[in-house]
């Protein structure tokens, strides 16, 4: 038995592969769920369906999806041009820290000034954190994967250092910053915990979708990512596009951090280092590196995240199962989508296979 490249691919094959991957995910995670003493079907219902059945649950899903929109877009924009920014985690935290620095030093700014200043600070914080790996890649050809990865733990340490040191809450003594001035609070939507960060994320999704799908820049970005040497040959400045995308990617992740501290926490806490950046890789990949795909997957993972909290309270199923489910889904989907390019043929003797080079 061996894999042979398909010459033609039927239209139903890609969706069918995703379907198989979802089924496989349910099968693979049913074991651990049973091990934890829950019925798999009831658990899956909690994860996916239950959060969507109440208005409050829906709001929580939107709230959970908001940071993933930003980190998902950040990763998608970078991966699309072949710049493997795996540092969205650090850039997200750097954005949150930059916003906090501004909010703590200018606490009395009125809303009209505070909101844009806070968001811009976050974006710049993300850019600052993305700058070094992008610069090293552009100037010295140093692999961005390692440098962006290494800066993630550094950002977490910086966050903890600031919270244990200069930003420690003087009233409570806890390692949380003081609450921001009221001007920095992103307005809430529909009277729920959902905040204007979601709107900002949706606007970014729309803008990026249009740029990628309907502009010459979008075509060049795609060309640079899919076939760098061919793109370079036809005059696309691949290195320059990667450098700019890297910084835009950092800005998007940083905005996500700003949106999270200004919209949800209204202060900086250690709980912000919850893996939003790494999950961004999952969101971008499952979303096919497209803006609308990112939106859909961010909502799905937000749903699972809320469901996981719900299941941990109601079914005593540890909420970490949500992470297991998400990562298994990622691996099964990429595996299935990769396999669909091939078909399995029974191994035949070499002599009976004169047209092997044709591949199918």
């Amino acid at each position, binding site marked *: 038995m061996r894999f042979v490249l398909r010459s033609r691919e039927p239209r139903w094959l890609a969706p069918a592969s995703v379907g198989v991957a979802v089924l496989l995910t349910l099968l693979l995670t049913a074991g651990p769920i049973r091990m934890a003493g829950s019925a798999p079907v009831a658990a899956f219902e909690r994860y996916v369906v239950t959060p969507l059945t109440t208005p409050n649950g829906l709001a929580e899903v939107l709230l959970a999806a908001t940071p993933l929109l930003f980190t998902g877009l950040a990763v998608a924009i970078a991966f699309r041009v072949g710049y493997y920014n795996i540092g969205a985690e650090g850039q997200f935290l750097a954005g949150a820290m930059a916003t906090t620095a501004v909010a703590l030093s200018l606490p009395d700014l009125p809303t009209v000034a505070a909101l844009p200043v806070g968001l811009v600070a976050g974006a710049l914080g993300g850019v600052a954190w993305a700058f070094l790996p992008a610069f090293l890649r552009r100037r*010295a050809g140093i692999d961005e994967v390692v440098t962006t990865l290494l800066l993630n*733990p550094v950002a977490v340490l910086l966050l903890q250092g*600031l919270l244990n040191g200069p930003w420690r809450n003087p009233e409570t003594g806890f390692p949380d910053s003081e609450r921001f001035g009221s001007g920095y609070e992103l307005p809430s939507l529909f009277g729920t915990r959902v905040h204007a960060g979601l709107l900002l994320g949706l606007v970014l999704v729309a803008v990026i979708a249009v740029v990628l799908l309907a502009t010459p820049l979008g075509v060049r970005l795609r060309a640079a990512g899919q076939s760098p040497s061919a793109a370079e040959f036809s005059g696309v400045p691949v290195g320059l596009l990667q450098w700019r995308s890297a910084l835009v990617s950092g800005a998007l992740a940083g905005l996500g951090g700003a949106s999270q501290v200004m919209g949800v926490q209204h202060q900086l806490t250690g709980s912000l280092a919850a893996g939003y950046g790494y999950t961004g890789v*999952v969101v971008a990949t499952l979303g096919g590196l497209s803006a609308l795909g990112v939106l859909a997957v961010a909502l799905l993972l937000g749903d699972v995240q809320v469901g996981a909290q719900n299941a941990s309270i109601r079914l005593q199923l540890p909420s970490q199962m949500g992470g*297991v489910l998400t*990562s298994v889904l990622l691996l099964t989907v990429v595996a299935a989508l*990769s396999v669909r390019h091939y078909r399995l043929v029974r191994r035949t003797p070499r002599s009976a296979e004169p047209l*092997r080079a044709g*591949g199918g």
Partner: protein
Amino acid sequence: MDFPILAVLAATLTIATPLVFGGLGALLGERTGVLNLGIEGTLYAGAFVGFLVASRTDSLAIATLAAVVAGALAGALMALLTVTLGVNQHVAGIGTTLLLVAACDFTNRLLFGGGERTVTVKFDRLFSGGGILAQYPMTFVAFLLLAPAVWWVLRSTGAGLRLTAVGENPEAADTAGISVARTRWTALVVGGALMALGGSFLTLSVLGTFTLDIVSGRGWICIALVIFGRWKVWPVVLGALLFGFFDALQLQLAITSAFGSVPNELLIALPYLVVIAALAIRGRGVRYPGSYLTPYRRA
């Protein structure tokens, strides 16, 4: 006040040990052309499985063996995805890390959630009172057994040459009758086992317990060390010692009164920044293995 240089050097060797295991594990995969970003999760899984089995059996031998098996399975998962199915290596690696970390956290919560921290049996230092040589057994294994063995295998055996041939030019290796898939699978499985051994060092030798931040980026350090060492065994070991030295130095500085005002976390970040600086200097114009990041299919 005189500087306790011997203590720093002893700590250097201890800190470098898991990096030697992890770095050489990563090196094996990359020499065949596969970047294993599952390393962070594999170290984590090695640490957790070692701890879990030690807490259940009170046997360090069984715990170490279990960690090795877990690491080999993690390597096999990575091989299945990247070698057999041809998935993008970055995505497969990050996905494997996320899966392993989530699975360990889930199991940890299930078995050890609530209640006080479980402490297991752990290895004792050999030659205690022997200054720099007062180290855990695995440290001697890493420097005196593993590193020379990997060096010798890569340099002087058929298996090592096949490994390099597959990494440099899989088409030529295939034509010469070497199975590209089998070679990569072997390298990833053995490499995964080594990574997990390094992870188990953290629980079974150093701490005697498991914490959620036990690995905290050491896997990424290993990946950086392999580039820093340009895919050669001894430079990777040297890089591990360099990181170990700076990490030991910051630990020492943290308890030295002159640096009392510097936040601890910034000192902990120092070795990571040193690695980035080292990469910026030594990472220019490195030549990657010929088939790096590229899945192989017969035309």
